[in-house]
């Protein structure tokens, strides 16, 4: 007996699905569906999706990450990030990405900054699913990328999604 779902039919359905997804079928008030969220993927896939093959330099001397070594509650882990930058229109950090390696969807947050910020700094609270590195990528106005990372031990997982 042949399968009712042929390869051709499956490919057609997949193509239609991709087209619908590209056309943003959800209105502004319904952006919380899985189709509008970042996909569940590994950190390597997220980095590739965000930055393609662009070179990322070691930013350990440039980026400081203030986080507890041991986070008792993974549902709210404080983080403060500062990137050394003059924040002038010619030379500024235009985006800071915070990524948790062990989260099913590794990108926690993207922070876009303008020179009016005067400083490349952000502080917030993250959900962390498990112990592991938290990576911070800073993107300069000219597109250059730097990365730094910090290991955090999580006592009670934050069930981050």
């Amino acid at each position, binding site marked *: 007996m042949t399968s009712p779902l042929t390869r051709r039919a499956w490919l057609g359905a997949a193509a239609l699905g991709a087209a619908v997804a590209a056309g943003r079928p*959800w*209105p*502004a*008030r*319904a*952006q*919380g*569906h*899985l*189709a*509008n*969220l*970042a996909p*569940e993927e590994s950190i390597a896939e997220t980095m590739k999706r965000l930055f393609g093959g662009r070179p990322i330099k070691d930013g350990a001397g440039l980026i400081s990450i203030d986080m507890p070594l041991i986070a008792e509650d993974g*549902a*709210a*882990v404080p983080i*403060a990030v500062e990137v050394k930058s003059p*924040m002038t229109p010619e030379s500024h950090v235009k985006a800071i990405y915070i990524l*948790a390696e062990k*989260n*099913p*969807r590794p*990108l*926690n*947050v*993207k*922070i*876009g*900054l*303008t020179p*009016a*910020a*005067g*400083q490349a*700094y*952000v*502080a*917030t*609270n*993250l*959900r*962390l*699913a498990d112990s592991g590195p938290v990576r911070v990528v800073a993107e300069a106005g000219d597109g250059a990328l730097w990365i730094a990372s910090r290991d955090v031990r999580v006592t009670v997982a*934050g*069930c*981050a*999604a």
Partner: protein
Amino acid sequence: MTDIGTVKLAVPGSVRRGSVARVRALVIHPQERVERQGGRSVDRNYRFVNRIVVTYLGREVAVIEPSTSVSENPTFTVPFRATETGPIKVTFTDSHGVKFEGTAEVKVT
């Protein structure tokens, strides 16, 4: 949570002209996380703050795009260079398209 959408902003009492100050913004919001059943994500319209815009004197300072893995009652601290006395405004928008705004006056001396 009856007070969903309450926005609180904290800025210094006064700031020296030209110096960099920081605003801390918080919104009371469930910031729902993706549920899983049998190892798979459940598809529904999750409610979480996915865009935050910070403006000072009407000019954009920061645009933040949080995911579901930012904690409940999202809070962000961002800097701004204080040039004149005026308002700093933070607008949180969630995935259901609802906006929550807060404004604070920055006194520059």
